[in-house]
């Protein structure tokens, strides 16, 4: 996007705001879930589905679609909100999150949810799966892209680095990793738990093209980074997106506490005021 399309950006931002509200409402209804990492990731997931990726909600298994693997599967409410709005399944399903029999499980389940590309939930596995899907694309001579979103805590898993080494070795330039660098995991700061820095240097050393996205919650920058990422040839690409955990609700932002719990009713009231959407209804 060379000339910034204001209308497009405005539209994406409005969608992301709606999704933020839906994420919190969904988790509230379910009683459990992971708001923090959902809110940090939602701007990027919105831009992927509404700007970058080729997908067809009427035909979720369309062979030429771009693939999105949510390796940090616990933030699936973010993915579900986007998929519902895209029309992969009816919106009412959102309010059944985590209920017995629901198509929306507590972690992504590709056999239950149309549009979910891969079942995830055990951290550290998605990148290698995405590597396999990128390899398949190459073998099948298809030009789809595979996007894989990882949590920053998640990349403490050794498995991630096996996938990283392989992807560079095979020059998988149809693979785009996205690191949601919100700097928090369950136990607190990633740098206190298990320091990741200098994280960009690590990916570079593994042979990846690193794109540092200064503000992964700023739609203009997100769109720009996705555009750049899909033009690079000859090696896998990782977008290291600096984000804010729980972005969009002031009292939740940057607090590890909101990693994995539903809001209490009084907190939800406050959040609703910040994410006010005229006419919003939980059906």
């Amino acid at each position: 996007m060379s000339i910034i399309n204001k209308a497009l950006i405005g539209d994406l931002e409005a969608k992301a705001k709606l999704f933020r509200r839906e994420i919190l409402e969904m988790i509230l209804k379910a009683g459990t879930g992971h708001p923090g990492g959902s809110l940090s990731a939602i701007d990027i997931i919105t831009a992927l589905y509404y700007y970058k990726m080729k997908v067809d909600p009427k035909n979720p298994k369309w062979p030429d679609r771009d693939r999105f693997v949510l390796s940090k599967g616990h933030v699936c409410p973010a993915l579900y909100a986007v998929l519902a709005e895209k029309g992969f399944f009816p919106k009412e399903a959102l309010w059944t999150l985590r209920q017995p029999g629901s198509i929306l499980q507590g972690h992504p389940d590709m056999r239950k949810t149309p549009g979910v590309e891969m079942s995830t939930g055990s951290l550290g596995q998605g990148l290698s799966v995405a590597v396999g899907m990128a390899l398949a694309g190459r073998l099948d001579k298809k030009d789809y892209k595979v996007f894989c979103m990882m949590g920053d805590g998640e990349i403490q898993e050794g498995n991630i680095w096996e996938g990283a080494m392989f992807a560079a070795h095979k020059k998988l330039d149809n693979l785009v990793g996205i690191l949601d660098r919100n700097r928090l995991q369950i136990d607190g700061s990633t740098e206190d738990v298990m320091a990741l820095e200098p994280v960009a240097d690590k990916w570079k050393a593994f042979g990846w093209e690193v794109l540092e996205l200064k503000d992964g919650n700023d739609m203009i920058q997100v769109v720009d980074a996705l555009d750049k990422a899909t033009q690079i040839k000859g090696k896998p690409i990782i977008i290291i997106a600096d984000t804010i955990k729980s972005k969009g609700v002031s009292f939740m932002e940057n607090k590890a506490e909101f990693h994995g719990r539903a809001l209490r009713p009084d907190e939800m009231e406050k959040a609703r005021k910040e994410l006010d959407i005229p006419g919003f209804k939980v059906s």
Partner: protein
Amino acid sequence: MVKYVRDGAWRESSEEFFKKIGFAGPARYYTRQLMNQTLLKLAKADPRICFVSAEGSPPESYEAAGIHRYRVMGFGIAEANTVLAASGLAKEGLIPVYSTMSWLLGRSYNNIFQSICTDNLNVKFLMSARGWAGGGGSHHEINDIAFMRCIPQILIMAPADTVELVKMITAGLKYHGATFIRIFGQPVPNLFEEDYPFQMGKAFTIRKGNDVTIISFGTELWRSLVASDILAKEGVEARVINMNTIKPIDEDAIIKAAEETGAIVTAEDHSVIGGLGEAVAHVLVKNQPVPMDMVGVRDRYSQSTYDKQGGWAILEKAYNLTADDIVAASQKTINRKKTKNIK
């Protein structure tokens, strides 16, 4: 010794039941608290005990309680590295305790198999099987006993209530060798009094009876007791055995039960493949084959539910883990015994 009162109260919905016995709030926090208290006490007395964790670190209270911070080690979200470092610690004579969600055991299975258990190193796995909750199939551990049980020499135990939990952790940490204690993640009623004589490797007969034997452990034990009450109303006296040690299993208790009751039912919150049921069947087939049935999850993945009593109840029903399922299996097995004219 045993708190269990036969007054039919067990038949009530679990929600009412838990209210009645005064079990307030999410029990897993209570369980974790109790577990930590026990561990702290043991660690104070034995400086070899140390704590390793992937994410979900041991609480700061450890330090506050006088455990040197070097004995509490967090490894980040890296289960393989955690268990392998535990191996090294144990090899040098320390007693590392690794405590997390049971489903994560499988994440580092070969590391455990190869680098801890080959040499039966003294690592303690205190894993909570969260059971049926919001997380869904990826987060419900219903295969852990299966894949751990086939590891040579490993000790596997599972407490059925908090009294047993404390006794089991205490005994398990004194024992030398790789140990897996599978801790319930859902509330369970307290079945035992403080004087309950827990013994590692020894099954405990919690209820006498000679028509059928229900062998169980962990979360399913109290449901087995509910089942035995229902059966009693129909004139069937079921023996109920707490098989708190799954490996090495108490063969004598199984053989004796088969001889004296001629019908066996196992009940477990685990897959029927590779769990307690198959362990018991193994003993029966070799020694005293009698009609038998297994209650457990039948070769299926699990799914999400509300993270509270009502939600669990729905899945327990869907996955055939209720007292009624145990009753039905018992009746079926007794009928087979009668028609086969065994005993």
